[in-house]
């Protein structure tokens, strides 16, 4: 795991230095994944040079909406975050978890396909926190997920979030906008000429990479500028979420009428769980070859919003959309804490942005807190303003 | 069989009754025994009474044309059987048959009603306790109705 004791030496890289950084990672046989424009949005894909990065683009995010808008500068990381986090690479949407072949008297396991070594460039602090949460869920339980473990050795170049988006609330969860750990290198972009990146290493190999990229020690001016930007950014969150007591709040409000209200809007389309960087639920599908000689067990992303998710001979435990929305929200903010010892949300705002009807997790939690059944105000709840 | 008063005096259904009240109830009671296979009563018969089953098991059955007798509940030692005496028409709704050798105390309905009118405290106590029996039977019937072990499809 990256992070740890490294000399506290702040460096600075220019645009060419960043290009060199990408090249050095490729030379070291990493497949470099970074943000790029795909279909009018920001997505994380293999990148080769800085020309592949979304220079001068910003993703204006709002409930149920995301639009790329041209910036007045050439910032390479002037966007908020990609439509998905890095989950598709570490916890693939579809993957073979086991394959076997019939032999004379039994079955032999087919060796799994090798996994690419990857470097992630442009990881936001919220997504670093999400990776740490998935580490807890998928690696720290009684059984570790071998598929996730095989993909977990990644080189991480994080980028601090200097301009949080309208749906962001990482500060409420303590996950940003600055990266604290979990990276080999963290960059803070300074766009004013000369376009440069203040860089810190989080590991020895991060130091080496910066050296190989031609990074120079940063001066006090640049260090102060980066620090100032992050202080300002922390105060510019689009939203807030009160996490104190949220576990008890949600458990106590299982019968709050708000669930029926939000259910009238929710399409149970499952998009929120697909874009959420911590959602981890999957389903298994067994299949075989036509000749019956090979069997393959495939694991695919699934969602608690699906009606079959809780199927138990004869019917689903959670068939109403109100119950399914309640399950997702309560799991994310409350029962996740009982199951894994930490809260499941990082405040990245993707579920708000990509929800087709713009349901806002922060608004729902506020509404439930306002109509908390424990304080006897349930009957006085106002109708949602939408 | 020991004295009916002794049986009533030690049975939870009659706990807390005063000596006079126990006497009044015992005055409406008489011992009854049934060999295995012998019916206690039939549906449609006059039901002016009830039973305290002291020992043995009784099957409550419903007979439907073409379906044969169907056991809807088994009454066991210690249970009270019958509440049709409370309100008219006083007729049994089910058949009851002794599954084993049964020792019981049979109460006369008219006598219980008279004793309750005379001593309304006694009447209130008996009514509360019979109501509890009815509630328990109804809860059980509801569970049976739900067919909880049945095929969920």
């Amino acid at each position, binding site marked *: 795991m990256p992070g740890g004791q490294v000399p506290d030496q702040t460096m600075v890289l220019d645009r060419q230095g960043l290009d060199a950084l990408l090249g050095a990672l490729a030379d070291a046989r990493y497949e470099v994944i970074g943000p790029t424009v795909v279909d009018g949005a920001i997505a994380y894909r293999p990148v080769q040079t800085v020309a592949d990065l979304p220079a001068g683009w910003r993703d204006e995010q709002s409930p149920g909406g995301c639009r790329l808008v041209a910036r007045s500068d050439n910032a390479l990381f002037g966007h908020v975050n990609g439509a998905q986090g890095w989950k598709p690479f570490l916890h693939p949407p579809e993957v073979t978890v086991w394959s076997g072949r019939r032999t004379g008297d039994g079955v032999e396991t087919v060796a799994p396909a090798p996994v690419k070594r990857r470097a992630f460039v442009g990881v936001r602090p919220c997504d670093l926190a999400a990776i740490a949460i998935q580490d807890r869920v998928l690696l720290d339980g009684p059984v570790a997920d071998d598929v996730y473990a095989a993909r977990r050795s990644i080189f991480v170049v994080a980028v601090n979030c200097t301009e949080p988006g309208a749906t962001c609330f990482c500060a409420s969860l303590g996950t940003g906008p600055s990266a604290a750990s979990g990276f080999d290198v963290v960059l803070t972009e300074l766009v004013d000429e000369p376009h440069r990146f203040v860089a810190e290493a989080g590991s020895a190999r991060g130091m080496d990479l910066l050296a190989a990229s031609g990074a120079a020690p940063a001066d006090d001016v640049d260090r102060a500028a980066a620090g100032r930007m992050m202080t300002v950014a922390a105060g510019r969150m689009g939203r807030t979420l009160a996490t104190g007591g949220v576990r008890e709040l949600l458990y106590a409000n299982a019968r709050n009428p708000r669930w029926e209200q939000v259910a009238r809007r929710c399409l149970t389309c499952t998009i929120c769980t697909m874009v959420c960087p911590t959602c981890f639920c999957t389903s298994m599908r067994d299949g075989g070859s036509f000749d019956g000689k090979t069997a393959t067990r495939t694991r695919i992303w699934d969602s608690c919003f699906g009606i079959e998710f809780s199927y*138990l001979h004869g019917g689903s435990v959670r068939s109403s959309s109100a119950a399914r929305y309640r399950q997702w929200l309560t799991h994310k903010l409350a029962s996740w804490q009982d199951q894994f010892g930490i809260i499941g949300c990082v405040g990245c705002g993707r579920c708000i942005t990509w929800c087709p009807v713009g349901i806002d997790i922060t608004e729902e939690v506020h509404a439930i807190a306002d109509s908390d059944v424990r304080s006897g105000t349930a009957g006085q709840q106002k109708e949602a303003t939408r | 069989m020991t004295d009916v008063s002794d049986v009533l005096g030690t049975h939870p259904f009659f706990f807390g009754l005063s000596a006079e009240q126990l006497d009044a109830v015992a005055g409406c009671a008489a011992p009854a025994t049934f060999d295995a296979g012998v019916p206690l009563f039939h549906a449609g018969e006059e039901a002016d009474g009830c039973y305290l089953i002291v020992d043995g098991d009784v099957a409550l059955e419903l007979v439907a044309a073409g379906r044969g007798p169907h056991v809807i509940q088994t009454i066991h030692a210690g249970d009270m059987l019958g509440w049709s005496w409370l309100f008219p028409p006083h007729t049994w709704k089910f058949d009851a048959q002794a599954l084993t050798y049964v020792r019981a105390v049979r109460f006369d309905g008219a006598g219980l009603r008279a004793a309750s009118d005379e001593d309304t405290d006694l009447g209130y106590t008996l009514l509360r306790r019979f109501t509890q029996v009815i509630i328990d039977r109804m809860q059980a019937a509801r569970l049976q109705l739900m*067919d909880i072990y049945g095929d969920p499809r």
Partner: protein
Amino acid sequence: MATLVDPVAGAVMAPAWTRVRTVTKELGDTFTVALEAPGGSFPFRPGQFTMLSRFGIGEIPISISGDPADPSSLVQTIRSVGAASLALTDVAPGSLVGVRGPFGVPWPLEAAAGRDVVVVAGGIGLAPLRPAIHSVLANRDRYRRVCVLYGARTPADLLFAGDLHTWRGRFDVDVMITVDNADHSWKGSVGVVTDVIRRAAFDPASTTALVCGPGVMMRFAAGALLADGVAPHDVFVSLERNMQCGVGLCGHCQLGPLLVCRDGPVVRWSEIAPFFSIREV
């Protein structure tokens, strides 16, 4: 308890493959399959389950229903309700079956030592309890009073009738059986299992109750035990949820704060009661 993984791939989801020894039809759609223990010996604790599969068809969680004193055989009782379970019951001696496990929190037999043990089973719920009954009766002097209370739909639906007869034949266990419905030929008790709890003799202040059956049945049985004075933390139920991995990674088996495969299936009633009464949790 070691999780079975294929040593070649080290894959969590890789089954260990073994063969069917016998198949017994218990009731209309319920079968008991005895497998050669994978690896020759398959130790487990009563209340645990495995993930069973047939090659290329699908994998489901199944309770272990055999005697833990004999780990050379893996005995599991399966109700045929879907494609995967149908494939697992449509087997013959020699059929290949994939096994992962054993998984889950078992019945608290150690904690029950020195106390009365009241086993309350409903319908197919007797299957995950049978190993516990075997274990308790094999170590009978560790426990005080032992009651086995069993409710089923009709006399034809009594599971493990042979075992029930054997247990009833002992002098050191109270076996009380009831059915919801019967015709004239049934000379036993007709009524709900909650009424049997009321009639059973045990010391509620020093009882460990093990309850398994349909959710409704467990809820009312727990209610009857509590009404009799048993403490909620002394009542244990076995939960059932959709399970796809059995090891706490797929998220399907959640019930409130619990992952049933990892934190259950056996849980204290005191822990789960608040969630049992909320709809669609």
